[in-house]
């Protein structure tokens, strides 16, 4: 009896990925909503009320840190997809990169705004030009640049390639953001979570992980929805689209 092997490469075709993505969306969207609610509950009602140095505004951490991580992770993912789309001439890879960009930009913006709202009571300033904040602002500009560049080029495949160059070149910024607090004198707090330890109260740790999980699931769901829209917009002429339901 021969073993049936799944041909995963068939999902590299937009026509095959489209229905798969459609089935996956609720599997990510619903748990995302649940985790957001649970994370907020743990962060506000289970985590310790306050500590000697920080005041209640420390609770911004439960959205600021996950958003910052998402901004960085999504940029790397975007650069990877764009690179694959560019190197292998894989349309769907480029479409995924285009789909990820707005979500990554939104999370980076959230991290900048929540960081500013945290900085005002904690440091007394809305903004400082230190290494981490500045490099995160650069990340924001890279996202905006990627989106603007792609939308300014009419030929879709040329837009994909141009965006891929920007995404891949810009990815060096992500380790700069991460290591900035070690390499330079920074007002921003150093790394609490390292490979060796996670110096945080257990309930805070739980809330943080739950919120990071919520942000990941949300991002995947939203990017799958967006890539389906992109597929439909780009493949308008394709027979498989006009034959299937709207």
């Amino acid at each position: 009896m021969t073993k049936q092997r799944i041909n995963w490469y068939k999902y590299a075709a937009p026509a095959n990925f489209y229905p798969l993505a459609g089935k996956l969306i609720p599997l990510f969207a619903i748990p995302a909503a649940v985790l957001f609610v649970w994370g907020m509950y743990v962060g506000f009602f289970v985590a310790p009320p306050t500590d000697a140095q920080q005041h209640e505004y420390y609770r911004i951490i439960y959205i600021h840190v996950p958003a910052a991580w998402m901004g960085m992770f999504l940029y790397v993912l975007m650069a990877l997809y764009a690179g694959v789309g560019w190197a292998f001439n894989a349309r769907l890879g480029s479409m995924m990169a285009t789909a990820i960009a707005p979500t990554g930009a939104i999370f980076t913006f959230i991290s900048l705004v929540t960081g500013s709202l945290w900085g005002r009571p904690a440091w007394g300033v809305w903004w400082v030009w230190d290494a981490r904040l500045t490099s995160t602002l650069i990340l924001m500009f890279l996202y905006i640049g990627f989106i603007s560049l792609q939308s300014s080029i009419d030929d879709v495949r040329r837009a994909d390639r141009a965006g891929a160059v920007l995404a891949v070149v810009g990815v060096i910024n992500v380790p700069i953001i991460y290591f900035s607090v070690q390499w330079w004198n920074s007002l921003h707090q150093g790394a609490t979570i390292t490979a060796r330890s996670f110096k945080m109260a257990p309930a805070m740790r739980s809330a943080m992980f739950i919120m990071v999980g919520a942000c990941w699931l949300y991002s995947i769901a939203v990017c799958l929805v967006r890539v389906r829209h992109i597929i439909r917009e780009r493949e308008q002429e394709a027979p498989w689209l006009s034959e299937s339901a709207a």
Partner: protein
Amino acid sequence: MGGFGLYVWGSYGVTLVLLVGEVLLLWKRKRNIARRANPEIASGETQLNTSFQGIQ
């Protein structure tokens, strides 16, 4: 929030607005795609008075 409510609720409020806004924009984009694919069926208009919809 010990007097820091503006900062905490402001942070979560901005987040909520942006994430809900993202979902709404995606929903709007889906409607535009459907409308462009089937202008008569999707919006109930006839071909005579269907106007051009910009790309989202």
